[in-house]
């Protein structure tokens, strides 16, 4: 998994997510098969389940909101004020979100961020978009370091963030960070121009020979499951 070409993994993930999304919510067995497929992929990539589970926590706030659907949605027609269609909606969203997120975790855990950008470039995503993503990936750590340094500098001079009371200095530091990042942007642009940049980012060098077999297997399996569920409905 770790050594597959990034564009193959991106296509496989996207294809799988689309199959999950079109699967009708009543077809429980289809979701079970999707889950088997994604868990098998996690196992094949040797991603520890604990690692994946912790990453799934990002869904928690979203799922808490979803859990209110059976109570707050359509008029109740079951015990305890629950509604049948609300329950189905909650199940539908929860199952699809979990499967989609697990697939993304597979992709993210086996692919470095710069390789993801390269993969998108090879899939002919417009160069402006991939350039912006590339700069974001490249400078995220630099900006995070800036934030950490400003934070240390503020604390060193007695700043103790408290609820609301600390908002003023924090807001000013965000302003300072914006100015710093803007100035860095100018310097980066000068460096680009100095090396002959004339408005067009160069193409990704390197041969594009990759085995598409894994993507084909994943997508075919997921689509067969989804198609089966649609036919048997």
């Amino acid at each position, binding site marked *: 998994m770790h050594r597959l070409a990034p564009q193959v993994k991106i296509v496989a993930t996207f294809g799988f997510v689309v199959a999950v999304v079109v699967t009708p919510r009543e077809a429980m067995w289809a979701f079970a098969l999707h889950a088997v497929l994604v868990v098998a992929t996690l196992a094949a990539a040797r991603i520890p389940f604990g690692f994946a589970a912790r990453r799934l926590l990002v869904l928690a706030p979203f799922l808490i909101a979803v859990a209110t659907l059976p109570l707050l949605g359509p008029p109740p027609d079951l015990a305890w004020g629950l509604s049948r269609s609300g329950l189905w909606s909650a199940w539908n969203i929860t199952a699809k979100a979990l499967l989609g997120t697990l697939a993304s975790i597979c992709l993210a855990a086996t692919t470095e961020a*710069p390789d993801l950008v390269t993969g998108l470039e090879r899939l002919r995503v417009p160069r402006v978009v991939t350039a912006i993503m590339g700069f974001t990936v490249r400078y995220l750590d630099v900006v995070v370091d800036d934030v950490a340094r400003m934070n240390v500098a503020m604390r060193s001079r007695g700043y103790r963030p408290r609820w609301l009371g600390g908002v003023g200095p924090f807001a000013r530091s965000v302003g300072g960070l914006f100015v710093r990042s803007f100035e860095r942007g100018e310097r980066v642009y000068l460096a680009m121009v*100095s090396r002959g940049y004339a408005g067009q980012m160069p193409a990704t060098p390197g041969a594009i020979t990759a085995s598409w077999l894994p993507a084909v297997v994943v997508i075919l399996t997921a689509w067969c499951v989804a198609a089966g569920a649609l036919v048997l409905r």
Partner: protein
Amino acid sequence: MTAPIIDVRGLSFAYPDGTPALFDVDFHVHQGERVALLGPNGAGKTSLVLHLNGIHSTQQGAIEVSGLPVVDENLMEIRRRVGLVFQDPDDQLFMPTVRRDVAFGPQNLGLDGDELERRVSAALEAVDITDLADRPPHHTSLGQRRRAAIAGVLAMDPEILVLDEPTSNLDPATRRELASLVVRLGITLLVVTHDLPFALEVCERAVVLDRGRVVADGPTRVLLADRELMRRHRLELPYGMVLEGGEGGRV
């Protein structure tokens, strides 16, 4: 002596807000020379350097790079000939991996395929970072990033390498390795710095710029030994370092 690679005549410059930065600067660097451009903060060193590859356009005076005037029509060729390495390598290494960053310049020159690959490998090898090629820049040390930034410029096959404060924030060992690296490259060099020992070690000639004017030009050792000159222009040797007078002087 041969025709100069860098030939600046009568250059004056003021920033758009009217702040004057350079007054009637005459300055030249010949093939194979290693020249230090010294001066206190705000002396106009960076303004001068940004003229050399046409980032600041000439307001008054003339600049030629190997006989080619620095004007808009020639900018691409000028930027190939003058390799500018900026002070903060994080500003210069903007591509996702070191290899792709080094390839950025030559790709803009229209190279691809084997020729591109050859240029990139040669540049990485020249600065000894072949093993870092596929790393993202933020997974390397400052010294390694500085080398990578130099490789990115070397890959454009420049006639002169211009380094802006190359030793800032480097520890002494990394600084020493950088000095031996730039000497070993054997390329015409202009080093903008206040690191006077570095200038002495690497550059045989020095030019002192203060308040936008060239105030001295001569052998680095002679200039650094002239205490009166150094004091007048806010340049100081590190504590405990004494250069004994003029030609053939010793530390």
